[in-house]
């Protein structure tokens, strides 16, 4: 079962992952964007860690909301409002929960994804973080429908996220900075789709490390 400590562990792993993958994400962004995605994500999750430390023991929605505000207030660029909204909208959907059932976890990602689509107006196939998030959410849903346990479900999710991330390689971008490149954007993996994959991987790691 996911509780507030799992969420905090997730965010700590995420911060470390963004730090470790800063160069990788930034290089991906250099190819079809402006070479800042890794720097932005590292700054944002570092900030999130400092802001959540006083609320670590509160309900999950408080932690998620603080994370969302931290990201909006420090990431900037496209990723800031998008990831920020993901966490804010997830928090709104899960008010005052201390533990997340499987349904709650699906709701977290579903609300977050909806938030990203409301703010960013991208559709699947536009070569964005949505191309990771949407199939990952589907995989989580069907894993639970199939009756897997949490860890197994998250493994399905990570696998789908990876495939979703890689599916962005041949895509021609229709949203974000990469869209200015037109056909030239094809052949490159989307940085936002990649950071989303990393975040989902971290959730699996967090749950595994707590079980």
């Amino acid at each position: 079962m996911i509780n507030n400590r799992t969420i905090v562990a997730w965010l700590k792993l995420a911060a470390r992952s963004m730090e470790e993958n800063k160069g990788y994400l930034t290089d991906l962004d250099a190819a079809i964007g402006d070479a800042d995605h890794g720097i932005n994500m590292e700054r944002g999750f570092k900030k999130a860690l400092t802001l959540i430390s006083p609320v670590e023991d509160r309900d999950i929605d408080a932690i998620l909301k603080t994370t969302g505000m931290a990201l909006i207030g420090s990431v900037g660029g496209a990723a800031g409002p998008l990831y920020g909204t993901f966490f804010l909208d997830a928090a709104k959907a899960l008010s005052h929960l201390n533990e997340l059932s499987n349904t709650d976890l699906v709701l977290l990602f579903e609300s977050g994804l909806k938030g990203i689509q409301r703010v960013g107006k991208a559709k699947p196939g536009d070569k964005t973080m949505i191309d990771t998030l949407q199939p990952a959410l589907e995989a989580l849903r069907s894993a639970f429908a199939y009756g897997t346990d949490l860890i197994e479900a998250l493994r399905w999710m990570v696998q789908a996220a990876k495939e979703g991330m890689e599916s962005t390689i041949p895509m021609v971008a229709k949203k974000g900075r990469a869209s200015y490149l037109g056909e030239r954007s094809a052949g490159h993996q989307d940085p936002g789709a990649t950071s989303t994959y990393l975040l989902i991987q971290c959730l699996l790691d967090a749950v595994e490390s707590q079980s």
Partner: protein
Amino acid sequence: MKKLINHPEDVVRESLEGFSLAYADLVKVHFDPTFVYRADAPVSGKVALISGGGSGHEPMHTGYVGRGMLSAACPGAIFTSPTPDQMLEAARTVDGGQGVLFIVKNYSGDVMNFSMAADLARSEGLRALNILIDDDVAVKNSLYTQGRRGVGATVLAEKICGAAAERGYDLPRLADLCRRVNLNARSMGVALTSCTVPAVGHPTFDLAEDQIELGIGIHGEPGQRRAQLKPADEIAEFLTLSIIEDGPYQRTVSEWNEEKEEWQDLALESPPLKYGDSVLAFVNSMGGTPAIELPILYRKLAQVCEKKGLRIARTLMGPYITSLEMAGCSITLLKLDEELASLWDDPVKTPGLRWGI
């Protein structure tokens, strides 16, 4: 990476500290959240003009804060849109009771962050409108993309709207004017070299000695296409013709409707330039191109305009919207009418643009 900086993560902050010392008579700098504002703000009875965006384009935007131009500017990290808290605090600081106009370059990050800021400002009872700048003809259409980028027209819109705010235009009229400047402006740029983001430490892209990137933005992003380096005349002619021969450009933008109190989609069209038009010609250095080269481009631009029946009525030439040390240039043509020309001529007193006072 060879730069006159200390630590890459301190560049923006230290630059702003020095900036505020150097121009203490004109501007003040607030940190956490970070924004630059007129030393005499708030100016009561005047609409406040706020812009902002990633750093690395100096003098834009911080250099355009002052009398006759911006009330405040919100600098983000290098090439990264600033965040809503910066814009909100800037709005609170410079609002003179007549509301705030946010001038926003059309990048997904900027658009989202400024929209959030405007929502937050309105929730506090401030009047706030956002106008998008999207003048880069290198981005071919808005159906399959984020829409055109905001580039050179931003500087012109800030100057012209700054003058109008000084003259006492109210918020809706100022928003109309800003939209009109944008619809009548078109730009296109070229890079000869990449720039290097300090925190990255190496050039964003590699270009062979004989290659250029045509149709670039202002963030070191790759352009429309890679091409052979050609003589300046051919490059200037290509850029100018790309602008002049660009057809009507349609897009849908989201603007706040003050009556209905909701965001609303608005279909807008930029009319093409036509024979007989008066224009403001703006030749811009991307940062690393030295001053001696710009007039060579201007010379060809003037010849092409003459051939196409465009009268250059005003000129701006220099490094006004840059991409760090990138070598290259952009050209912007803004169709002028009497009102725009006269607002352009009004006095302005900022660190980056100054005349008349």
